[in-house]
């Protein structure tokens, strides 16, 4: 892990943001690396919340077919499908950005990480769009 490959979390110059969690949402002086950091954390928090919601909802399966099959009817309604598209987008953004973070952390693409971030986010947008169409047209 090369220590010289990491992006600075905060720019060396420019207005200082508030420290800690609140500072993530302060856009002042934020560069692309900072935006990538912010996006990764926000999507990550969202996915952690989803993971535990998912586990709670799966408990319906232990209540037998009536509870689960009733839930499926609700889960296939348009509002829930819209949430599925948001989930898919979050997974794609976090996963693809995570690949970039891993590669940069291992010192493999440090000089091209900004271009890589833009390319990966473009891929995430395209796949989320295609997946969204698939989600709304399946069945």
């Amino acid at each position, binding site marked *: *892990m090369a*220590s*010289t*490959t*990491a*992006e*600075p*979390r905060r720019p060396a110059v420019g207005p200082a943001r508030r*420290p*800690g*969690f609140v500072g993530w949402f302060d856009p002042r002086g934020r560069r692309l*690396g900072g935006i*990538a*950091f912010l996006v*990764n*954390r926000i*999507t*990550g*928090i969202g*996915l*952690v919340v989803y*993971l*535990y919601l998912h*586990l709670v909802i*799966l*408990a319906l*399966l*232990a*209540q*037998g*077919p009536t509870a*689960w*099959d009733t839930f*499926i009817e609700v*889960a*296939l309604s348009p509002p829930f499908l819209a949430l*599925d598209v948001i989930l898919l987008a979050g*997974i794609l953004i*976090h*996963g693809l950005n*995570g*690949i970039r*973070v*891993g590669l940069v*952390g*291992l010192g493999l693409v440090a000089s091209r990480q900004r271009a890589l971030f833009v390319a990966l986010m473009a891929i995430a947008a395209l796949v989320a769009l295609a997946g969204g169409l*698939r*989600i709304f047209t*399946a*069945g």
Partner: protein
Amino acid sequence: MTSDQPAAARPEAGPRMVPGFVGQVLSGAALLVLLGLHMIAQHFVVPSGLRDFAAVVDWLRNPVVIVLEVAFLVVVTYHALLGVRAILFDFGFSERTEHRITGFLAVVGIATVAYGVALVAAILDAA
């Protein structure tokens, strides 16, 4: 949930954070495979996108499926809680508090996996 910055590059973090970053990268790589399998098997190949109760039970009767799903749960829980730990550590707690956070999250992780395994057993019992 990986930090955008390897801990080794953060002077305030110190070498003790490095295993966390390596763990995030390795578990993230494993998730690319396990999450991909989960999404394809549970959602993409199912016509409506969700299995009904009978189909879920049929699916879970395959031991290979149980191994893969439990492995997925273990890795995703580890990755998620390691990310939560990285976020909490950014608040600048004392080293003692950080140790407590690590211990607490380890308990949460073990409880999560135990819940998942118990849930699989309960689903098969309910069938």
